[in-house]
């Protein structure tokens, strides 16, 4: 592949190529449909022979996330990927990372649940991702790609955010974005950071003591006073993230009377529903949250004041719906169209839901 070449690949393959190119130091993962192409592509590309990136097929998801904990604690750019039930297993490691302020990237290519569920696409892990997912008061940054290009682009972004705020970051994708092929231009190669660069940029990391105080990375303290102060520090960090890192995209909202709020693959399907509705003369636009946490609450609140109604289109039972309702605060009606268990809504279904639940209603 030459620089800036347009290629056709799956979202999962794009994640793997982008990881190698953005200077990722290590990948630790365990296969599960529909994301196994990430590990497969890394195995085919053999980045340990080129950039020096380590790729390990771990014995389980628990092992994977704890390898990420360890790698991240040394200031390395490390990641894992899995699908819904596998990411459920990782929640302990993720909350430990949040508590110990260890950066790392987790890619979740979601499938239908609950439990082992199905292997078909779903967005059922919205709550798991945006509410913390593990124990305690914490959040992780959640990016929701809606195209293969964004799968490639969000890899480096996720690492940057994870290290800027010393927090785990999740790329929340699903079986549609992971499995489909689209055109993509991969990011340019960026060298892995040297040990000196890591030591300089991550003074908190366990890089070998060499004349300084110990860097202790742990989520444990037996002193509740200390732990409350640590929690206040985390909450202050989360406030800064909420103020500075909200990302979203708007489509045709200027003249819109109705708004669809949808993320990831549901936003792609909704875009076609908007084409159908606009063709009938319905003035409908879309807001697509790109960061699910932090959520674009202020912008949705602002738009709600001039909308006749808002439809949440999700591939779940209505999870982002809660965040939209909290943003709207009753300013206009909010309805839902959702499918579950691996079933995916069609553009026609979403258009019909908007007509029936908001225009007729």
């Amino acid at each position, binding site marked *: 592949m030459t620089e800036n070449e347009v290629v*056709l690949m799956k979202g999962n393959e794009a994640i793997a190529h982008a990881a190698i190119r953005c200077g990722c130091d290590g990948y630790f993962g365990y296969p599960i449909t*529909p994301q196994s192409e990430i590990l497969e592509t890394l195995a085919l590309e053999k980045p340990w022979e080129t950039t020096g990136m380590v790729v390990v097929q771990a014995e389980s998801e628990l092992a994977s996330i704890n390898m990420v904990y360890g790698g991240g604690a040394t200031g390395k750019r490390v990641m894992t990927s899995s699908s819904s039930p596998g990411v459920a297993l990782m929640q302990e490691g993720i909350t430990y990372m949040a508590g110990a302020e260890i950066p790392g990237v987790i890619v979740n290519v979601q499938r239908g649940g609950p439990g082992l569920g199905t*292997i078909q696409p779903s967005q059922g892990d919205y709550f798991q991702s945006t509410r913390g997912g593990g124990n305690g008061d914490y959040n992780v940054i959640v990016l929701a790609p809606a195209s293969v290009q964004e799968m490639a682009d969000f890899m480096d972004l996720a690492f940057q955010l994870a290290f800027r705020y010393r927090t785990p970051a999740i790329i929340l994708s699903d079986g549609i974005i992971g499995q*489909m092929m689209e*055109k993509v231009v991969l990011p340019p190669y960026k060298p892995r950071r040297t040990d000196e660069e890591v030591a300089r940029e991550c003074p908190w990391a366990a890089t070998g003591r060499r004349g300084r105080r110990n860097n202790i990375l742990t989520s444990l303290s037996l002193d509740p006073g200390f732990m409350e102060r640590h929690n206040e520090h985390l909450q202050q960090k989360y406030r800064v993230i909420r103020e500075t890192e909200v990302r979203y995209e708007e489509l045709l909202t200027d003249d819109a009377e109705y708004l669809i709020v949808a993320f990831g693959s549901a936003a792609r399907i909704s875009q076609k529903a908007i084409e159908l509705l606009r063709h009938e003369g319905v003035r409908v636009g879309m807001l697509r949250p790109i960061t699910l946490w932090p959520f674009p609450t202020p912008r949705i609140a602002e738009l709600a004041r001039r909308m006749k109604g808002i439809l949440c289109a999700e591939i779940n039972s209505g999870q982002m719906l809660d965040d939209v309702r909290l943003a709207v605060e009753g300013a206009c009606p909010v309805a839902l169209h959702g499918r579950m268990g691996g079933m995916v809504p069609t553009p026609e279904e979403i258009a019909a839901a908007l007509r029936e639940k908001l225009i007729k209603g």
Partner: protein
Amino acid sequence: MKEELIIAGFGGQGVLSMGKTLAYGALMEGREVTWMPAYGPEQRGGTANVTVIISDQPISSPILSTFDTAIILNQPSLERFQDAIRPGGTLIYDGYGIMQPPTRTDLNIYRIDAMDEAAEMRNVRAFNMLVLGGLLKVRPLVRVEDIIRSLVKTLPERHQHLIPMNEQALLRGMDIIRQEHSA
């Protein structure tokens, strides 16, 4: 220009790779493309299908419920997708895989006996390229030379020697497709 197409048949018939070859050919011509497979248990031996969208404009939904064109390679797929083709659309089917022919009268229906032809060529692996050739004859979505360029680009080194055979199959497919019904 925009074409929304489904290819459906048995796992192992080359449904997904036919779609990929078509999509890569369209990419070679600078078009927007999406290729969305049914990646479930279908891929592991049951019915397999892939949605391919080719457009001059950015593509919104990779998930569709109706199509301009359907390539149907077995009976269960005909039953599942026949009614999803838009009126005036195109249906191409393989004569070997279909026992009860399509019943719609508002479609352009074409038959291609690609399985029989592949057997005659003593090369079952030519099957999907015969069908693709048939498609390109009746829906010239991508130039044949760009399909060949896409094969050069995507086939691993060890399969590059198969490209002349594939080209021959594409051209033969264009010859043997027959119109059965006009919308």
